[in-house]
């Protein structure tokens, strides 16, 4: 339970950064931290004590493998999530760079003032 709680604290740090910071780059970094936290939480759910990586070795029987391997389904889904997060970060940074070219600052309160 403590380990789940640590992943939750990591998520809270990212949430704090998204809500309280005025710098666009800090907000993007908060979103990245939240993505990391969710990925870590999903992997923690699939963890089994004294389990092995879900790779079938020569000489181990299938029933033994089912009883000793980690849960492979969260791992497959988290790989997809990690790669998609890279595309999302690239899109967010491109938007931030365009805003900087237009307004000359990363400060979101300044950007809000200059609307129109």
């Amino acid at each position: 339970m403590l380990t789940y709680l640590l992943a939750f604290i990591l998520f809270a740090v990212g949430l704090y950064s998204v809500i309280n910071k005025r710098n666009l780059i800090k907000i993007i970094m908060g979103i990245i931290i939240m993505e990391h936290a969710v990925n870590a939480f999903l992997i923690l759910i699939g963890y089994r004590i004294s389990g092995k990586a879900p790779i079938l070795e020569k000489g181990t029987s299938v029933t033994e493998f089912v009883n000793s391997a980690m849960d492979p389904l969260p791992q497959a889904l988290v790989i997809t999530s990690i790669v998609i997060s890279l595309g999302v970060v690239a899109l967010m940074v491109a938007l931030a760079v365009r805003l900087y070219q237009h307004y000359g600052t990363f400060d979101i309160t300044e950007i809000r003032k200059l609307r129109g």
Partner: protein
Amino acid sequence: MVLIQIFLVFTIIAALIAVEAPSALSSIISLGAVGFGLSIAFLWLGAPDIAITQVVVEILTLVILIRATIGKGVTEIRGNESKTLLIGSLILFGLGSAFFANYLSAFPEFGKSAIDVFSETPSQFYLKFGLEKAGGANVVNDILLDFRAYDTLGEATVLFTAILGAITLLNKDVFFGEGGEK
């Protein structure tokens, strides 16, 4: 198990430094510490594929972020942060903690996955028939490329669309003609 907790605490400290550091470069490097620390934790959690992917993606993210912020004078934007936002974030944090504490008991305790608790799960099917039906010893790769290959196709589509949007945003000539917008 203690080792995993130590690595998670390390990532939390690195995330705090990344959020609070005054200079842009040092906070981006601290963000890299979060990702690489998590990648080592994934190795201990028995997920080598994810550790490798995490390292590659983390390096690319750092390169993108440093390229975006370098030379822009993004040192510190400080000043009066608004009180309402702080109170709102505290309320949000309290609500999130309450939900988390409420549903924490529904999870199997740490160290037991769904395979141990339920008798018939998709994971058990994949582990049993991965080698036989998909022909690969690595079950994660079997799921990605055989059992759930349409997921991977959708992932490639999403990635392509996001990168296309980023290129369109960054290339001024596409929207604003010759010379770009001032």
